[in-house]
């Protein structure tokens, strides 16, 4: 994507925020990078020259359950009309967010610097989130039964 001019890097808790921004800057040296970080995040001084804008969210820990703040966040990102939306992880929630931002493309940067595109189809993201949720609930139910039906005999020390 040579016509990428506006990029948004979305912070999540993890050790590779700096690496993510650098990786994006290397791929798109002339693009303007905006970062979204939680309020109070100690932004690395070494990155300031690579970043055009730092947006601090009121959310301290991003949570999909904080619906109001999440919607405000999505609305603000949509307004900025980014060409590329970048996350630090790949998860159903982040895929949904990427789809909702209205960015033309989305990607995530792995902790080792690997770069992967994320589909921006909202329906695909929703399907993925629902499917994983179902598998997760079924697994939880199975473990619940195992733990209750197969007790452990405590050892004598």
């Amino acid at each position, binding site marked *: 994507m040579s016509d990428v001019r506006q990029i948004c890097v979305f912070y999540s808790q993890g*050790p590779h925020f700096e690496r993510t921004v650098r990786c994006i800057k290397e791929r798109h040296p002339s693009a303007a990078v905006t970062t979204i970080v939680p*309020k109070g*995040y100690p932004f690395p001084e070494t990155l300031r020259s690579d970043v055009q804008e730092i947006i601090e969210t009121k959310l301290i820990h991003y949570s999909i359950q904080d619906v109001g703040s999440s919607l405000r966040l999505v609305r603000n990102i949509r307004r900025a009309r980014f060409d590329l939306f970048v996350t630090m992880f790949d998860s159903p929630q982040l895929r949904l967010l990427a789809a909702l931002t209205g960015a033309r493309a989305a990607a995530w940067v792995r*902790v080792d610097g*690997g770069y992967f595109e994320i589909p921006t189809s909202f329906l695909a993201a929703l399907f993925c989130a629902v499917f*994983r949720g179902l598998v997760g609930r079924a697994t939880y139910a199975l473990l619940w039964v*195992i733990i209750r039906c197969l007790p*452990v005999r405590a050892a004598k020390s």
Partner: protein
Amino acid sequence: MRIAFVDLLFSWPPHGGGCADVYYTVLGLQRLGHEVHLFYASSADRWERGHVESGSLPFPSTRLDFTARSFTALHVQERFRSAVSAWTPDVVFLAEAFFLRPHLVEALERYPIFSRYYAYDASCPRDFRRYLNDARCPLDYLKTPNQCRRCALNGQKREIMNWQWSAWTEEFLTARAFLPGYYDRLIRSLAKSHTLIVYNEVQAELWRPYNSQIHIVPGGVDISEFTHLPLQPKESNARKTILMAGRAEDPVKGLSTLQRATARLAQTRSDFEVWVTVPDHRLNTEHLKAVGWQDHAHMMRLYEGVDICVVPSLWEEPFGIVAVEAMAVGRPVVASRVGGLQMIVREGETGLLFEPDDDEMLAQHLSTLLDDFDLGRRMGDAGRKRAETEYDWQRIIERHYPVILGGVGK
């Protein structure tokens, strides 16, 4: 002696106290003349596992790569068994691992294993803290396995249901820690380890019935990174500052106690300000200021600018590195009487202790130090001395490990 270090969660730069502990232990033993080699797991799919900046380790190491799919108990056992055996160590030092620790003990049982515990993993499968519903949990997985298994599943409910998890839950599932057999495996692994190395007496007491060979080895700091700046008197109209450092947003760290103590103090005096390293500015009051998360370099400057450091932890803090860091800079420490903190702070000498959650006593201690500059300075200086003699990594290694390793073969 050839010492193989095995770690499932090592990264450098570190993402937690455990990684720093491993790094300085390997380095220290190398300096003592031992041949060391670190074998660590790495997974591109997990930020917690094995992300080491190239050329950053001053000792030999081997990275064992895994993916989310290949990170199975059997595969982890096989990979570590073959890599470690090929290096032919005399002993194995089992460092960071969660639920797969017993599997690693089994895989490497032909060697004497020194198993280092960084929290209460063996006693709390929920989250290694033994802290539940705003109180210290009296249960112990080794004694009440069924209650603790239910609690563990409950604690990981959200991650499992969302089918997206942290390294802790990944190992819970990979190690099949929900099955009854895991419990027996854990008990066997405690017994099979040559020595258990722990941070404090609470851990030692919990696990002594399963292995009598337990050594308490504290954590530490690289003292050369900390400049001793003796406490300086403040101008008469300047406010004195009290700092709560670390992950203060975590409820177990006791910020609520400090908030209540601050409110008490504010009723009688206005010559102080409390700084807390949390990003939530909604916490700000006239006397309390959220200064945001701080990186290592900023943290040093913060310590240097304050008059008193507070560590009001509510859980049985295994060690309490922030107390040592404050002491290393020369600041008096007011800490709760829990876990490793009560071992670090010498009451009346390097700081003051109070019962966890007792905001009245905390306010009294803070008041004492705010009123008595000389006392604070004396405690700060004594704290620096204690950090130099007791908590400098190289000294810790020299003091403890010749004794611990000397027990091999006996």
